[in-house]
């Protein structure tokens, strides 16, 4: 094989995997940039930090990825996550339930809330944007009603452990998050359900005319989303050690942004978990790197936005170029 052949094979491989390669290159560029400009960025302690901080978002983003893949959107997950953390704490503090009663209960509640979203989308035919905007408000309302503005400080021990312990230098929470990502990867890539998710997202009408039950897929995706958010909510409570109104609000934008930066299409059918893992890292590398860069904190938010925009343009540009090649 000549050099030319090797190069051609390499180019073809890149082109086939461009949807993953484009954000991956962005991530590498960011890592190199911050390693040079921010001294402490490349330390082991900092990597541990990034892993620990990104874990919750990664769990959430697995669910979001699936929702985006079928061409829907969920705006209620951050509010639901707060609600779940409040319920967990409330069950523990006020009702005095045991941890092993609370966890399955909360998971089932998460599934039911997901079912509410999914059934509204599938059977009442309301666009998911509107449905989840409404349920978001409901979830926020329930949180306010339960807490009356007061914070909770009690956390089930096991959740606190998962949220804060380390195995060697690796946060347990990150291992849990990565395991969930692996499960999602398997589900999406290697099961019939996963295939249907991609086909429904790629062309809903075609899936329907092939006799695929689009409604069932939509409902299941939202139910899985609900369970994922319930897991994230409980672990979030564990990590922070407390919760109150609006604890996880910032994750709404972060979650959708990370998935989209990773290269999953907002219109469905394209992308996946590998994209999302990369997207989550891009998001946290950016935040963490800017934190360490010793700059005016008032300019940080704006810079984050600008770099995100540039990253998105870069992704799109590379994908377009490879499509033409």
């Amino acid at each position: 094989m000549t050099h030319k052949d090797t190069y051609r094979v390499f180019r073809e491989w890149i082109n086939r995997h461009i949807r993953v390669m484009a954000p991956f290159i962005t991530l590498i560029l960011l890592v190199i940039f911050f390693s040079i400009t921010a001294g402490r960025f490349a330390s082991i302690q900092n990597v541990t930090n990034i892993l620990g901080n990104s874990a919750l978002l990664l769990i959430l983003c697995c669910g979001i990825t699936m929702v985006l893949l079928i061409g829907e959107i969920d705006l209620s997950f951050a509010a639901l996550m707060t609600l779940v953390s409040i319920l967990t704490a409330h069950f523990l503090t006020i009702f005095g339930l045991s941890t092993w009663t609370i966890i399955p209960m909360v998971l089932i509640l998460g599934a039911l809330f997901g079912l509410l979203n999914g059934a509204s989308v599938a059977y009442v035919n309301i666009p998911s944007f509107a449905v989840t905007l409404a349920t978001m408000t409901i979830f926020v309302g329930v949180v306010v009603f339960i807490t009356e503005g007061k914070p909770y400080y009690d956390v089930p021990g096991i959740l606190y452990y998962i949220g804060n312990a380390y195995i060697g230098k690796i946060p347990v929470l990150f291992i849990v998050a990565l395991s969930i990502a692996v499960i999602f990867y398997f589900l999406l890539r290697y099961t019939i359900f996963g295939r249907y998710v991609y086909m429904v997202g790629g062309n809903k009408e075609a899936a329907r005319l092939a006799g695929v039950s689009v409604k069932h897929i939509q409902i299941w995706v939202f139910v899985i989303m609900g369970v994922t958010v319930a897991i994230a909510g409980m672990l979030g409570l564990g990590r922070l050690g407390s919760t109150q109104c609006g604890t996880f609000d910032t994750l709404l934008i972060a979650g959708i942004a990370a998935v989209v930066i990773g290269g999953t299409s907002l219109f469905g059918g394209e992308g996946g978990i590998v994209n999302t893992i990369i997207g989550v890292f891009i998001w946290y590398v950016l935040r963490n790197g800017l934190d360490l860069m010793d700059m005016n904190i008032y300019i940080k938010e704006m810079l984050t936005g600008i770099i995100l925009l540039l990253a998105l343009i870069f992704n799109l540009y590379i994908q377009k170029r490879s499509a033409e090649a």
Partner: protein
Amino acid sequence: MKNDSINPILQMKGISKHYGGVKALSNVDLDLHRGSIHGIVGENGAGKSTLVKIISGALIDYEGGVFLNGERVRFSSPRNAQKKGVGIVYQELSVINCLTVAENVFLGVQPVKGGIISWNKMKEDAQNSLAEFGFSHVDVQKPLSHHRFSIKQTVEIVKVLRLGAQIIIMDEPTSGLSRDEIITLSQILEKLKADGKSIIYISHHLDEVLQFCDTITILRDGKKVDTISAEGCNKRTLVEKILGEKGVYLPSREDNFSVLLRTKEEVGKLNACLRTERLTVSDEFEDVNFEVHSGEALGLYGLVGSGYSSVGECLYGLFPEYNGSIHIENKQVNIDSPVTAKKIGIGYVPEDRIMALVFPEPIYKNITLPYLSKFFKGFFLKFILRKKEEISASQKQIDRMKIKTPNALMPVGSLSGGNMQKVSLGRWLTFQPKLLILSEPTRGVDVGAKVEIISFIRELKKEAVMGFIIISTEPETIMELSDRIMIFSRGKIKAELSGESVSMSRLMEIAS
């Protein structure tokens, strides 16, 4: 005035148009007289729409001359043609349903007073304009979507007249209309005529062409066959002129693939597959009764909008609120969704490939989609995809149907129309359903693929496993494939033809 009635308002002399090497029109003449209705008829592809495009200024690159009031003109755009008095009312109306009647009438030319739209004047004028055509009762402040098709059509006509049209081109105006709306249309046409407007009337519905038009020009294969007076002409003569030699065309009952089109007696001996009784979907079709046997192909033929294609959609669960009953193998079934339809053994190849396939995904994923779960065995393993098995099963269909592609991994979107159609068909063949509904199986595919698809379906028919329903507006396709043909007209089965009684001219005569 007298001069006007002799000299045509619009004259076309020696019009020719090529698309690459294909002649769309050659040396066509047409005289349109003031205050008259001139029909243009012909098969699909005979050149009607090309001619209309030239008259309306949408096509500016042609040979020959167009004369308006004796003056040579060459429209530079549809806007330019409109300015000079040529307006067009398309079959797919260009009205905006969510705006009110008045807003539609004045779209782009709202009456303004001091920079502000004067709504009262708009309302009054719209009301008056519609009243002139006998629609005085219409609430012009309601959105157009609340009104019937004929009102939308009238709004379109009013719009065109407002822009100063002397010549109005009407493209297939009756296909969206009910019987009583057609009577209203005839009154509108009479009024336009009385006002001295001239109308070019294009339609497949020959009954109405004969009823409304004064003169009729017949096109065939881009050439003018004849211009005749509608008076004293009957439908059969018209059909003969439209089809020419093709009218006596009969499909080969035997060919290299040795498949016979069966006679009625032969069909009777086959096993029953599907039966419908008084099948009705409101606004689509009513009282449809037929039977399909395994190994038989039943053709449903009609003009666009005659309801024949909705029958296929209904059998595949796309009209869950149908009336009447459907029986599969003599058992009554309730088909409320494509999922149910598939479960009880019905497959469907939709007319539109954009609706059928997931373009960016590989061919094999599109082929395995309908029966995905059947490819994998074992209790738990059933839920897990095995790419190798999928690809080898897909490759079988690719080879069998001669789909031109390097491998099964190529995205479906990279294929040509004909090959996409083969994918859309091939996906039903690994695990065959009891009944396969093919909607427009040869629409928009090239001649080579057409022949391949037709002979392939004939071969499948020979296996006598599946029953087929072939739905098409293309008479050749219907005739090549069907043992029996049901002809639809305005939502009802008008006739059933089989064996020797089938011919192109019979199909056209009954359907139009």
